[in-house]
């Protein structure tokens, strides 16, 4: 029999579904939302943000021609520029992750809805390729955007200030990593509920609660009951450490070594469990 009667190999199926996901994002203009916000931020940094450095000792940040910040009396120029870079890197990390999750959470469940999934499931395809194809299609689309946004911002800031801190570029893998993990959560919830709204809310709750749960040391000191401390710790342990990943970017900009890889490992485990759960749930699901 020829290949058409047997169906495509796993890699071809994966690529076809990835391509279809990107095609859907383009035609639904979702890609424009992601890349449009990136273009807006880069143009803002290029034309609106001004960094004036006077005789190499004092720097002023201006927005729309108005002075927004300047070096303090006891602050060195390098420290000031490092902190500005840190603030922008964390902002880009947060914004790029937020926009990407917002856009892709709306895109993902469509494929898993009854009626549309039927067309794929009636073909001799392994269900895991369908889930992974959709997931990787989103990841590929967002990955390129993260590189363009953060590398572009790095080049513009470096060109304007003459201050180049390679720690800024750590925002690329960390933003991409945070998105991949949140997207695995979105995929799991999408398959479970077939609802874009629920998937979006759950992903945003994970982002929202991350900085709160990260205050674990403070919470353990303040909470009176052992049970409450246990619940806090349990939630902290099993949820992705989005806030701490952002803090790692600032640490790298300050030239600090990474004190602990635990947030990365815990977040990666969360993502792996969600993605494996998505594949397993989709494989078992009745349509």
């Amino acid at each position, binding site marked *: *029999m020829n290949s058409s009667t047997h169906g495509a190999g796993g890699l*071809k199926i994966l690529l076809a579904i990835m391509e279809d996901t990107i095609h*859907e994002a383009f035609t639904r203009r979702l890609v424009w939302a992601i890349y449009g916000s990136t273009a807006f931020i880069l143009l803002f940094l290029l034309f609106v943000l001004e960094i004036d450095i006077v005789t190499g000792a004092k720097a002023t940040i201006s927005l729309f021609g108005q002075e927004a910040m300047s070096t303090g009396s006891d602050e060195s120029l390098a420290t000031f520029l490092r902190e500005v870079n840190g603030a922008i890197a964390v902002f880009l990390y947060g914004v790029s992750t937020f926009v990407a999750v917002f856009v892709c959470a709306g895109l993902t469940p469509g494929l898993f809805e009854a009626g549309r999934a039927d*067309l794929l499931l009636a073909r001799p395809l392994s269900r895991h390729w369908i889930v992974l194809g959709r997931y990787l299609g989103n990841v590929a689309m967002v990955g390129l955007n993260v590189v363009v946004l953060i590398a572009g911002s790095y080049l513009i800031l470096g060109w304007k200030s003459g201050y180049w801190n390679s720690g800024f570029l750590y925002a690329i893998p960390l933003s991409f990593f945070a998105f991949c993990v949140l997207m695995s959560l979105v995929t799991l919830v999408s398959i479970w509920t077939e609802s874009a709204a629920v998937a979006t809310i759950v992903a945003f709750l994970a982002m929202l609660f991350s900085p709160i749960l990260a205050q674990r040391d403070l919470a353990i000191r303040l909470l009176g009951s052992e049970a409450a401390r246990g619940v806090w710790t349990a939630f902290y342990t099993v949820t992705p450490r989005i806030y701490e990943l952002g803090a790692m970017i600032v640490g790298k900009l300050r030239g600090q070594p990474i004190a602990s890889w635990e947030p990365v490992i815990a977040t990666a485990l969360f993502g792996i469990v969600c993605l494996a759960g998505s594949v397993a749930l989709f494989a078992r699901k009745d349509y």
Partner: protein
Amino acid sequence: MQNPSTANGIAPAESVAAGPPAIETKGIGKLYRLGWKQRTLQAVENVDLRVAAGATFGLLGPNGAGKTTLVKMLLGMTKPSGGGAWIYGVDCRDRRARTRVGYLPENGRYPAYHTGRSLLEFHGKLGGLEGAGLGHRVDEVLGMVSMRQWARLRLAKYSKGMLQRIGIAQALLHRPSLLMLDEPTDGVDPVGRSQIRELLVDLNAKGVTVFLNSHILAEVEQYCDDVAILHKGRLLLSGSVEELTHRSGYSLLCESPKGELPQGLDHLVSDRPQALHKYADGRVKWHVDVANLDLLNAAIDLLRRHRSQIETIEKNQNTLEEVFLEAVRGSTHE
């Protein structure tokens, strides 16, 4: 690539008579557990079915009978809770069972961002078609469903009938040996329905097994060789359309010139003749039933000698709708 010796790109049958049946189920069932309380719903119960390779088969049943659940179990979309099913001898839980199947879902949700052509190209890629072969095959199936001129239009702009045609085209892409069509003519205009019927006849003539799930009983009666009737998840009847609609004997309509039927006819008829109409001039129109061909001929000879006019002679037969309604009512009264 298309075999040049085949019309419409439809491959000839591969050993239609020999080999395993296209579909076989043994005691297949599906029990759903719903909600937190795990309320049970027996959607399909202990169904034994056999569809011969090369047949045209119609699955009938009222709404909620379990037809779609049965089809989804055959296609591996829903897991049976009991029994088993095989497509060309391959267990339906094995995805290889679907390599020879083309499927048109009843309420298929076609992604609106696709054009007709891009949808077919996507499904072609999933089936291993690529390059020039893919483009060629897409053109072919678009032609088979008369959709070439609309191929570059977004599906969002398609009518229900156009979506059905594109759905049939995607089902045909991989030259399936078994076509499973759920309400294929739903929303299609009469001309389109006729074209689809012709296409299915053509496919079947080339050995493709056609499994039709339809509410349009006249369509099934006209097109299918075999049918099964499903009700409340259970198989009520299955067999050839001819067997199921068969009723012995013949009936004829005649007019007797003086109102009376000839003497001796009462020995030939199976039921007492019914007077259907009395004319002012004394003529009477009668409905006469006879049990077999010999008695029919004897009755005709007698009537003609009596100078009765014979209007029509028909072989007694139930319509599929009558068979269907009787089966469903009988099951409901049980």
